[in-house]
């Protein structure tokens, strides 16, 4: 019951799972995804591990600024994605400013890593419960006959691999945590395995639900949840949406923590909170960027984010390798 060394695994996992839930369209058939996940999970974990090793050697202010910019850009995309979804579901009810305000407001209480860790655990539990409730509520509509029997092509596998190899910043964040070696073994592997398993599982449910029409549906998870009824509630998509908003908030709080660690606002104590005096800079900056980029094509921007993340990882590897080589040469 004493809080010691709070783990951010749940926060990382929630941040990854919400990517699956907020997806506007499905990307691959689950059969292809199942096979590719076996390869992609260790690959993603390996990329994260190598990045962490390189980061220790190569991290200098330029890299830190680049990483910070990547996190801010991802925060903006997440907010825009949530806003667009909210606008599709409840047209005219929420503006971009109100979405920014509502998502960022609880971050005030998530500035301390122990609070973030505990809240992420709670949100993860609620997310799992809500997903189970959604499953239970749509169970009669899940039909085995909806499973596609057509032979998979190479294109299907490639689509699955391409989607699963989307490199989210969450795989890179553990490199920033203090005493990362003591965080438990195979953290990144567990993270990738859970995230991809959830992704494939969700695709399977959607295939059982929609059948051949799965790739055509916009906001497929939300649309499926809309059909579920439980007790006095006709539909349960609002419950799902509440949890998605929570998960996005946890994600932004995680990014804030990472930004504070990156850009030097954090003192040596791991659990010290980001100061409230610096705090308005983050939501203010993110809101401003959201306002500027509000008409952005999100799908293209998310693809660009993936390219940028891979490029940044590549750059860090090169920097790490160069730093390692330089040290060895100096020793010689």
């Amino acid at each position, binding site marked *: 019951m*004493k809080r010691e060394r709070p783990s951010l695994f749940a926060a990382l996992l929630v941040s990854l799972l919400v990517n699956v839930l907020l997806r506007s369209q499905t990307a691959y058939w689950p059969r292809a995804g199942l096979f590719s996940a076996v390869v992609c999970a260790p690959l993603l974990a390996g990329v994260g591990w190598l990045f962490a090793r390189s980061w220790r050697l190569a991290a200098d202010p330029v890299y830190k600024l680049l990483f910070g910019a990547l996190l801010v850009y991802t925060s903006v995309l997440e907010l825009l994605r949530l806003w667009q979804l909210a606008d599709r579901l409840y047209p005219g*009810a929420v503006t971009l400013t109100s979405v920014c305000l509502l998502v960022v407001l609880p971050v005030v*209480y998530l500035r301390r890593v122990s609070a973030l860790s*505990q809240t992420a655990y709670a949100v993860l539990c609620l997310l799992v419960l809500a997903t189970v409730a959604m499953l239970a509520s749509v169970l009669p509509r899940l039909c085995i006959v909806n499973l596609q029997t057509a032979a998979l092509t190479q294109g299907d596998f490639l689509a699955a691999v391409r989607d699963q190899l989307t490199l989210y910043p969450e795989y890179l964040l553990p490199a920033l945590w203090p005493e990362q070696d003591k965080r438990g073994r195979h953290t990144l592997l567990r993270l990738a395995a859970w995230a991809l398993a959830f992704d494939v599982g969700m695709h399977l449910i959607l295939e059982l639900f929609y059948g051949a029409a799965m790739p055509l549906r916009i906001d497929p998870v939300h649309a499926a949840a809309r059909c579920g009824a439980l007790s006095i509630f006709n539909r349960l998509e609002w419950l799902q949406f509440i949890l998605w908003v929570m998960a996005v908030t946890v994600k932004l709080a995680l990014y804030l923590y990472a930004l504070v660690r990156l850009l030097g606002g954090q003192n040596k104590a791991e659990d010290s909170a980001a100061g409230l005096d610096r705090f308005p800079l983050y939501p203010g900056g993110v809101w401003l960027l959201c306002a500027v980029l509000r008409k952005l094509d999100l799908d293209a921007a998310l693809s660009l984010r993936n390219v940028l993340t891979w490029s940044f990882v590549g750059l860090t590897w090169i920097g790490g390798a160069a730093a390692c080589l330089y040290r060895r040469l100096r020793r010689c």
Partner: protein
Amino acid sequence: MTQKPLYRSLDANLALLEEMFGRSDDFYTKRLMLAGIPCAIVMFTGLSSPEKLCRMALDMLDRDPAMLGGGEGLCDYLLTQSRVPAEPDAVEDHTALVELLSNGLSVLLIDGVRRGVAFSTQEMPQRSISTPMSEGNLRGPQEAFTELLRNNISLLRRQFRTGTLVAEISTARTRAKTEYCLCYDSTLAPKETIDALRERLKRVEIPVLLDSAYFASFLKQDKLNLFPAAAYTERPATACARLCEGKAVVLVAGCPYALIVPSFFAEHFECLDDYASGAVFAGLIRILKYLAFLLAVFGPGLYVMAVAFAPEIIPIRLLTKLAQGEASTPLPPMLEMLCVTLLLEIVREAGLRAPQSISHTVSLVGALIIGETAVSAGIVSVPVLTMAAAATIATLAVPSLYEQSILFRFAVIVLAGCFGVPGLACAALTILAMACGSEPFGYDYLYPLMPPGRASVRDGFVRSIWSRLAKSGEVISRHEA
């Protein structure tokens, strides 16, 4: 006041006291001769009894043989040899003298001696021990703390009959020099927690300390967090149970409520009856309390959100009823709910603060105005009134979280009413983050509820049977590495 030592001269000491308390009519001083040495008795008549002093000390001194050694000899004799039950430590400075007099002791000042001898002759008016007023329980001990610190300590010690119970009395840094007592079990309570608590209490500096709750704000880590940093009880039995869990109890003089530190969220849903009744029934009641808390906080907000933003989630027959109710009222659902909830709070506050003879009238008139007139006039719809009343009643199921329930409820109504589903999500996560972020003395505030585990069903959401609970009592220091 500076730590000025007592004067050697009796007259000088008395002159100083006269200067300080001379204008107070309850200040009592009497010169007398003991074994031929000039002495004086000083006390406050309302706090201390001259008869008791006479019976306890002076009669006995008259019978004692004459002492050699003058004033110093008399002082030493009284402190170390005499059968007279004097306090073991001599009074040596003016600050201690004033404190002892204010505590109801009588002090014997001796001419030619820089020390005084104190006698416990307190006889102050006090409220007798009664049944708890705000913690209703059907079973278990029915006595409550009173305003007198020593009585409260004795009530606690009577329940907790081991040599490990420590009661450290200190004086707070207040203008009135109020005393408080830090109680803990020296073997069960974690030392670092007790040390930290002792240090924080020592640092507290406030003009007046009338309630143990004044300390709570100083013990909070995050001042923006609305969840309480400590729990309160007026039952010695509850305080004793917390001591057995390794927690600390702070008693403040003049306050019949004990402060319990650290306090966890789940404790607000526990009561003595839980452990006196069967496990199944207790578990059911506890789950009902959690649901009541959720209803109290989210019920009205959820209603406003559903009616204003997401009517599609409500079954059609229920929606028809709600729409009929809402159609006849002029205000939008959020304002309507806010008004009714505010009015209910005003009625409650008025009923609480009004003199007891008219408080029932206030409640009755409030209920009549809101319940009957407002509905029949079409100002408020019946569904809104029903939901607000249900939430208010649900709040009382967890009285120790009353303040939080009300504040959260208003926030949820406003956010859900303005922004719909995202607003409700924001409110829910803010509350969750507050609960998760609360960290009393480094402990998880949500323990044993989060993270979910065996402890959550052992004595968390529900409670296990006694034979299992008894196997390993819950002690906060046990889980520390």
